[in-house]
């Protein structure tokens, strides 16, 4: 049966920002639709309206000509609209099965059968009786998808589903999505990765600043044309000039080990590397192989043997992040919402989290609010954060803008070494370009970067040297010119 979903003149206004401005769109089953747009363009807002999470100020939604009243996520579920959110909504300590049946009123046994059938049909293999926390990101996402499929949805919406997946997991997801589509499920797919759009989708809608700017068929588009539509101008392609490699060593890690008491963390084994001034060391790997532990050891959130880290001829292994910042190190963690920033606090308060003595945010133990605010305004304008209200709680920034704020906060102090973990995670092409440019500029100013990333393209673009982390061990360090993405892929899988 054919499904037709129509969005008609939807508007959602937030104080100081029109998130959706009179958007009308029509979708038909049998096709996979991409929804593209810069950070803050209003994509998430639009699909949250479709899934009942947000109630629009104006406009109507029709499913097969029926006007839907979507006042809550439950209404959406009842109307066969399923959504997989960007962040997982699973109970980590409950089993897969318990998570799947939690919002269902059917019988446990019949559900188990149903789930088994679904898994067989789409070749999912997940043990239903282990707790969620033992699953990889790709498996967790499958659980979310199964949760939608149980209700035989007519519409399946996915908001940036691949940002946490490995390449292997991504191609598996695509196979499933294509199958769903063949079976008549209407799929709406949000992403920032234009390559994926070209691979997967049939039609593409582009939003900019809350407005729908174009709807077109994929066969008439290419990556450049899509990027230009999103940003509204031509994007320059950026390329790193290969630096004259200096031999002036900035940081040296020697025999660094970390053994965690937490069974779900990865132990680091015998890490050794060094980075010279003006250099970017890329660390590749499939997520969950010790990147987060490595980041924490480097930032000082996990303290190690004093002599295991030598920075600018000082041993700093036993210093905490605040003390390391005084040596001109800066850190940009992966987790924006739970670690790098506090969503409930205002923008300028978040800026004060990175506190150098010389920035004078706090004098004699007192808050110097004016200083912090001036500094925040500078970050916002230098790094194009799309707001001018530094009193805004940072939870209301779109993901990309929050990331710009954080990177800006770390870079504006012009550190000697920036350690960043997936810095462009979830960002739009324009923002990625901007951050890549910034990172290249840092290297040109003879400052160094350790770039931990799960995005191979990004690593190949920015790094001078590359190493791969697998199960807490680093591969040997290679010159970036000698490396190809195939070679990285093999090393990431654990081969030597």
């Amino acid at each position, binding site marked *: 049966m054919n499904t037709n979903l129509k969005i008609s003149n939807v508007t959602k206004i937030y104080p100081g920002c029109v998130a959706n401005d009179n958007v009308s769109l029509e979708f038909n089953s049998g096709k996979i639709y991409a929804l593209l747009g810069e950070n803050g363009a209003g994509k998430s807002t639009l699909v949250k309206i479709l899934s009942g999470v947000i109630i629009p100020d104006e406009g109507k939604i029709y499913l097969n000509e029926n006007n839907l009243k979507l006042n809550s996520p439950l209404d959406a579920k009842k109307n066969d609209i399923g959504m997989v959110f960007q962040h997982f909504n699973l109970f980590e300590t409950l089993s897969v099965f318990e998570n799947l049946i939690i919002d269902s009123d059917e019988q446990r046994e019949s559900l188990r059968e149903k789930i088994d059938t679904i898994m067989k049909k789409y070749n999912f293999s997940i043990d239903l009786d282990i707790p969620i926390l033992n699953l990889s990101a790709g498996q967790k996402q499958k659980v979310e998808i199964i949760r939608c499929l149980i209700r035989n949805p007519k519409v399946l919406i996915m908001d940036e589903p691949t940002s946490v997946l490995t390449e292997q997991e991504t191609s598996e997801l695509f196979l499933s999505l294509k199958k769903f589509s063949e079976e008549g499920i209407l799929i709406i797919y949000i992403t920032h990765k234009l390559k994926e759009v070209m691979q997967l989708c049939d039609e593409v809608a582009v939003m900019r600043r809350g407005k729908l700017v174009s709807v077109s068929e994929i066969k008439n588009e290419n990556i450049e044309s899509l990027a230009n539509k999103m940003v509204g101008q031509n994007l320059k392609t950026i390329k790193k000039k290969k630096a004259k490699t200096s031999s002036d060593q900035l940081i040296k890690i020697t025999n660094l080990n970390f053994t965690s008491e937490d069974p779900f963390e990865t132990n680091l084994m015998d890490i050794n590397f060094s980075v010279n001034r003006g250099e970017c060391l890329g660390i590749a790997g499939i997520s969950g192989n010790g990147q987060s532990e490595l980041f924490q050891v480097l930032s000082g959130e996990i303290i190690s043997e004093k002599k295991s880290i030598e920075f600018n001829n000082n041993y700093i292994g036993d210093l905490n992040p*605040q003390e390391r910042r005084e040596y001109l190190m800066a850190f940009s963690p992966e987790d924006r919402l739970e670690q790098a920033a506090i969503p409930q606090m205002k923008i300028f308060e978040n800026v004060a*989290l990175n506190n150098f003595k010389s920035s004078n945010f706090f004098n004699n133990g007192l808050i110097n609010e004016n200083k912090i605010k001036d500094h925040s305004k500078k970050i916002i304008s230098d790094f194009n954060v799309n707001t001018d209200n530094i009193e805004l709680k940072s939870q209301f920034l779109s993901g990309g803008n929050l990331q710009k704020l954080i990177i800006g906060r770390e870079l504006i102090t012009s550190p000697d070494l920036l350690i960043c973990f997936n810095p462009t995670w979830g960002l739009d092409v324009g923002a990625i370009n901007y951050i890549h440019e910034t990172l290249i500029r840092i290297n040109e100013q003879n400052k160094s970067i350790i770039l931990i990333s799960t995005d191979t393209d990004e690593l190949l673009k920015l790094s001078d040297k590359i190493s791969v982390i697998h199960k807490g061990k680093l591969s040997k360090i290679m010159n970036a010119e000698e490396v190809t993405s195939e070679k990285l892929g093999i090393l990431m899988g654990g081969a030597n």
Partner: protein
Amino acid sequence: MIKIVKRDQPSRAIFFFTPVLAIFLTLVAGGLIFFILGFKPFEALKFFFIVPIADKYGFSELLLKATPLCLIAIGLSFCFKSNNWNIGAEGQLTFGAIVSGGVALLFYEQEGFYILPIVILAGAIGGMLYASIPAILKTYFNTNEILVSLMLVYVSKLILDYLVVGPWSNPEGFNFPETRQFSDSAKLPLLFEGLRIHAGIFLALAAVVISWFVFYKTYLGFQMKVSGFSLKTAKYAGYKGKKMIVLVFLISGACAGLAGVGEITGPIGQLHREISPDYGFTAIIVAFLGRLHPVGIIFASLVVAITYLGAETAQIFMQIPKYTGQVFQGMILFFLLASDYLLFFKIKFIGSKK
């Protein structure tokens, strides 16, 4: 039809409205209980909440009870804001009282302006010492501060018992479990002739002002705010988590200790077994009812103080056991937790408009 909708963001107004709603619901439920017990609800509530503070004396009694509640709750707000669950303020109060009482007894029948400050200081130090136990055990041995601080309450009460019955009991006191009366120089001055309200209230007011300043104007306050939201972020920012834990416990212990000093050098004037009608526990309710905000805590301490007074008048005039006071305190907390639901959800009445 009634519909419950999630709020985008709890507004500031609702944040301070729910405590008021909780108090209102407590009154309604209290009236209902009185009714079931066979009293006229309005009359009983009047005895409970209005009669006790209708005259000058009553008002002074209200401030007298609100003083320790406010002081302790201010101290607790430092702990609670930074995710440290100090439940043992009653123990810190008791131990502060023991130390300052001991010092006051050293100055038995002596005079001098310097005595009172020393006695007060001793109480604060006593409270801090006692609060440092759960703090240090938590930071260095990973123990749970809720259990440790709570159990230490009973330890402190037994120490007090032992002292007032044994070594410190009044030699001329016919074996009553109490110490000698402190000398006048070791007592807080009364503010008005014939009323029991004493200078301890200034300690509480000072604590309010200082805590407001610390919370909103200092680096320490900022660090507490961050740690309260996310310990992960605090770690990333590089705040010295352990030091801060110890510090907030010390502040909280000092406040509770001062509340103890206020009681024994104020209305009581000696040490005996029952120096506090569980002020240390009730102050937890006060802290949350006041939303951990200095000004909120002032109001909350006044409201909760009435339940102490009301229970006494109700006992005298209506032969209701004075434990009804605790029932009211429990109901306030209960309704507060329940109405906090409104922080995250709003109730919409729909159906009338088509």
